[in-house]
C-alpha cells in the first residue's frame, strides 16, 4: 500500500492563507515533507474558502510541481476545478473522486480518458453510503463496468469503500474490510482500492493509534492506497511492516527506510 499525502488542503489554515496571498512557501514545504516521508502521490484540495477555485487549483498544482516530482491527486467535487488542475499537471494525475452516479461518472471517466488520469470511485450514490458490504460491492461493480466501458484500465481505477468514524459507524468497519476483499474479484486484473484513512478516527481521542491499526488491517484485506499524512512516522512504519508480513515487499533489515525511499 502507498500513501497519498494529504496535507495540501485549503481546509488547513496555512494552506488557505497561502492560497489567498499566493505564497507558494507553505504549499511547497508540505509537498517536500510528504515526498521525503514516503508519499507516492500528493493530494491537492483548494478547500471551500477559495474565492476562485479554478484559479486556486491551477496555482496549487503549479507550485506543488515546482517542489516535488510526485504525481498529484486532484481533490474536488467540482469537475471544472479538477479539469483546471488536470490541464497543468505534468504527470498523469488521479481524480478524487466520483460516486456511482450518472452523469457524474460520464463526466469524470471522459476526463480520465482525455488526460490519462486514474480515478477514485466512491462506493456511494444519490442515496448515500450503504450500510453493508454487499451494497458497497454492487456500487463498485457499477464503477468497474462504467470505467471499463470508457476504456479505463483496472489498474487506474481506485475503489474507495468509504470508511466511517469508528465512534459513529462502528458497524461499518468489518463491512469496509469485507468490501476491500470482494472488489478484488470484480475484474481481472483486479481494480485498485483506496481509503481516506483519517476518517476512521475522526472525533476519537486515539487518532494515530486507530489510523495505523486500521491501515494494517486494511492492507491485510487488499488495500492498495490510503490518503493519509506521510509525516506520521509510526503509520509509515506500520505500513512498511504490514507490506513485509503480507509478502508484498521482500524483507531486508532496512525495510522501513526502503519503503520510505521507494517511489
Amino acid at each position, binding site marked *: 500500500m502507498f500513501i497519498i499525502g494529504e496535507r495540501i488542503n485549503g481546509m488547513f489554515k496555512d494552506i488557505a492563507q497561502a492560497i489567498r496571498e499566493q505564497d507558494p512557501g507553505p504549499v511547497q514545504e508540505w509537498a517536500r515533507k510528504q515526498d521525503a516521508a514516503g508519499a507516492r502521490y500528493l493530494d491537492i484540495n483548494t478547500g471551500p474558502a477559495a474565492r476562485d477555485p479554478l484559479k486556486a487549483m491551477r496555482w496549487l498544482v503549479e507550485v506543488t510541481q515546482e517542489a516535488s516530482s510526485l504525481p498529484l491527486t486532484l481533490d474536488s467535487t467540482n469537475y471544472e476545478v479538477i479539469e483546471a488542475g488536470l490541464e497543468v499537471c505534468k504527470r498523469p494525475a488521479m481524480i478524487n473522486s466520483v460516486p456511482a452516479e450518472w452523469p457524474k461518472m460520464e463526466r469524470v471517466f471522459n476526463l480520465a480518458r482525455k488526460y490519462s488520469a486514474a480515478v477514485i470511485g466512491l462506493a456511494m450514490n444519490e442515496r448515500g453510503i450503504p450500510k453493508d458490504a454487499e451494497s458497497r460491492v454492487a456500487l463498485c461493480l457499477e464503477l468497474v463496468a462504467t470505467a471499463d466501458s470508457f476504456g479505463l484500465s483496472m489498474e487506474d481505477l481506485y475503489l474507495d469503500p468509504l470508511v466511517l468514524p469508528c465512534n459513529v459507524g462502528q458497524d461499518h468497519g468489518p463491512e469496509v474490510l469485507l468490501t476491500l476483499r470482494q472488489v478484488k474479484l470484480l475484474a481481472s486484473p483486479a481494480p485498485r482500492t483506496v481509503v481516506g484513512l483519517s476518517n476512521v478516527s475522526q472525533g476519537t481521542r486515539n487518532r494515530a493509534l486507530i489510523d495505523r491499526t486500521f491501515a494494517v488491517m486494511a492492507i491485510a484485506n487488499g488495500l492498495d492506497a490510503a490518503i493519509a499524512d506521510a509525516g506520521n512516522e509510526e503509520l509509515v512504519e506500520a505500513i512498511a511492516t504490514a507490506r513485509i508480513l503480507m509478502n508484498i515487499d521482500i524483507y531486508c533489515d*532496512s525495510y522501513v527506510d*526502503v519503503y520510505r525511499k521507494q517511489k
Partner: protein
Amino acid sequence: MPFTPSMEKYRSKVKEVVLGATREQGGTRAFTVTVGGETSLPFLHFEGQIAHRPVIGLEVWDVAPADWPACLVPYFEDVFHDPAAWARKGVAEYGVDLIVLQLRGADPDLNDASPEECAGVVRKVLAAVGCPLVVLGCGKAEKDNLIMPAVAEAAAGENLLLGVAEQDNYKSLTAACMVHKHSIIAQSPVDINICKQLNILITEMNLPADRIIIDPTTAALGYGLEYGYSIMERARFGALQGDTMLAMPMIGDIGAEVWRTREAIAPRSEFPSWGDQIDRGILWEATTAAALLQAGIDILVMRHPQAIKLVRQNIDDLMVKSSHAGQANL
C-alpha cells in the same frame, strides 16, 4: 483463431549497468558492455524490452590452474601461464564478451602474490584485450582487502567490475570503487534478504545503484541450481515491481561450479551409463547456464569453449523476437 497472450504490466525495470570505459570516458577499453534494462521477465519480447543480451565472460586465472579437468587443457594449455595471452585467446578464438580475471595467485596458501603483482597482472590483461574486465580476488577476505584497492587504483577510470563485496566485508571494496570509478559485485549466500540489505549498505556509502551487479550465488545443475534460480527469479520480480534495491543485473559463476561436479568430470569408465565425459561435461555447463538465463541472469562466467559456443547460440535464439509481435494465429 487469433490468440492474444495475456501480458503483465510492470511498473519498473532493471537498472542498466555499463561495464568498462573507453578513452573518452577515462579508460582504455575499445568498447563498453551494457547489461540490464529489462522491463519484463526473461525473453518475453512481446511483453517488454530485453534491452541488452546476456553476456558471457571467460574465466581467466593469474596462475595456471592445477585442478582443472583434462578436457579443458587442450583449449588453454598454451596460455595457462600467461593471463594476458589467455584473455586474448578467449576474445579472439572463443568470442567471449568479457574477461573475468581471478587473482587466485594472491591466496596466501598458493603464491601469496603481492598487491603490486596483482595490479601488474590486471594492467597486462587490460593491455591485451579491448573488452571490459571483471576482476575477482582470491576469495580470502583479509587478503582481498589488501589487493583490491591496489588493483582499483592501478586501473583507475577503467570501470572494472570488481568482486566480491559481502555483507560483512563490503566497505573496503565499495570505497575503492567509489574513489577509482569502478563497479562492484555484491555477493550474498543464496539469501534474498541479505542480497537486498547488501545493496542498501553499498548505496548508503554513496556508490550509485547503477554500478552494482548482484551475485546471488549459483550452483551447478544437480547441486542446488534451483535455489539460485529461485532467488534470481524473486529478485527479478521484485525489480520489475518497483523494488529498487533488487533492480540490478545479475552475475553467476557457472564454470567453477560445474567443473567440480562428479557429473561433469567423472570418466565413462566409472559410470558407463552416463556416456562420454567430454560431451557430458560440456552439456552440464551449457545446461546450467541455459537454466539461469531463464531466471534472468545477465552475466555468465564460463570455462569450456564448447559450452560457451552452445550458450551463445542459445542466447541468439532467445533474443529473436516473435514475428507476430504479440499476436499469433493458432
